[in-house]
């Protein structure tokens, strides 16, 4: 899908074209999935948040003045929806298990090379050890491939703060993941 196609879909969706909106959902959903999951690693929650995000986006899309800013705008909605969900869960959690991260086992030592699913589990485990602020910047900059200024705009903080958080988040991730280094640095077995 070319950028022109995307722009055209956005404009059509702004005029109420449901099919154009469906194209945008199919395009953006996988991209946002990783971002939201990094902030709240629970598949059910992520799915629900993304549904909410697209419902909100559909409602507000006619008011979007700059269609080229669609991706950033949608990401902002997703991030804010996730943050609201996290805040509510913390405020109203009555039992410890009301706020559950998806439990995923760290790969066992016998595996010589990690499958992608294991790598995901490993990264998720590491992300849960970061603070929510750090998870946000990792999600936006590392996974959504935004620059610090864009992430700062979405998070509503200075770009310097984003850079600083990113630095510490990366450092922490590197340390957390270091013990598992051998599993993902091994050479691909020759077939």
């Amino acid at each position, binding site marked *: 899908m070319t950028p022109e196609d995307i722009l055209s879909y956005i404009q059509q969706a702004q005029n109420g074209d449901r099919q154009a909106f469906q194209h945008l959902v199919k395009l953006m959903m996988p991209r946002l999935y990783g971002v939201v999951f990094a902030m709240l690693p629970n598949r059910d929650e992520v799915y629900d948040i993304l*549904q909410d995000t697209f419902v909100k986006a559909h409602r507000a899309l006619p008011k979007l003045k700059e269609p080229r800013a669609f991706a950033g705008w949608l990401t902002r909605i997703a991030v804010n929806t996730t943050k609201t969900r996290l805040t509510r869960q913390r405020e109203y959690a*009555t039992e410890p298990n009301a706020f559950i991260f998806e439990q995923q086992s760290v790969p066992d030592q016998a595996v010589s090379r990690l499958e992608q699913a294991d790598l995901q589990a490993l990264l998720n485990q590491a992300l849960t050890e970061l603070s929510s602020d750090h998870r946000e910047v990792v999600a936006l900059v590392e996974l959504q491939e935004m620059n610090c200024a864009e992430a700062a705009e979405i998070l509503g903080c200075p770009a310097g703060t984003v850079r600083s958080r990113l630095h510490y988040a990366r450092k922490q991730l590197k340390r957390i993941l270091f013990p598992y280094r051998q599993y993902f640095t091994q050479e691909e077995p020759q077939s």
Partner: protein
Amino acid sequence: MSESSFETELSDQELAHVLTQGAMQPSAEEQARFWQDLEGRLEQADKSESETVNDDSPMRSLPPLVEPESLSPAQSRKIFALRPAFLSVAAAVVVVLIALPVMKQGDQSPQTSESSVSLDQLESELGRVDSQPMTLGAAPPAEEPLSAADQKTVSRPAADPDQAALKDSEQEKQSVPLRKSRNESVKPSAKTPAVKPVANAPKNKLSERKAEQADQLKQSVSPEQLAKEADAAKKLAQEAKAEAVAQRWAELKKILADLPVTVKPLNATQAELQVSQEQAAALEARLSAWSVPSALSHKFFRADQVTYLLEISGRP
């Protein structure tokens, strides 16, 4: 890749590899049903939006107990800032409405005989005189002042012994029919000064005076006090509601104690109930028995579980 024994963290490339390969992706199944679920929700949202527009019941004007998610904190603050002002104005109007009959009675009391009097009151007083076997004579000329003695003998007109003399009065022929005209100035006899009449006092003047008195009364109750009272009443109502809701939550906890249901409170009155498909019927049955079927809205199915949105109100 070279590895130093002093290394305690991954290199940038290694981290980039993990981040690239480990980024979470939706499963094929999730992607497949995502649009279907979303379309359902969009239609539901459209429907509820149109219902909201059409719903003009008076209950719509009541402020919500819980802040809607869509309101920003700034908007919420604005709304809550307007509430005391609205309540104080409403309370002032109520006070004035309650006070009006009291003021009317005050007008009829002898203490206010120095002030103006309403025509209705005057007529009722004269009616009592009328019930006696006598005829009310025309009043003396307006410029004729009341003597001090007359003012002292103010009493109920029927008990006035001097009224008998009115029968013999030469002014009897000039007597004015009582209900001839409301706008006509009615001057009672100097002998029956139950209240001191105000000469030529038109009714609109009386209304103005009433309005003035109402304004004075309104001003005498400070807006701050009214706002305080309104706030206190609101607080009491909210506390009562919160207590009722808390009681309902406790009931719910008891009812669902032995069912494998995940309860995720969303806010003070809403919660998400997640249950496996096998247990969904049992959950619905229990909640129906608990008399909240209307408060339970089905949200969506997942592969192995059902999620419900439960709204708890204070009333069973």
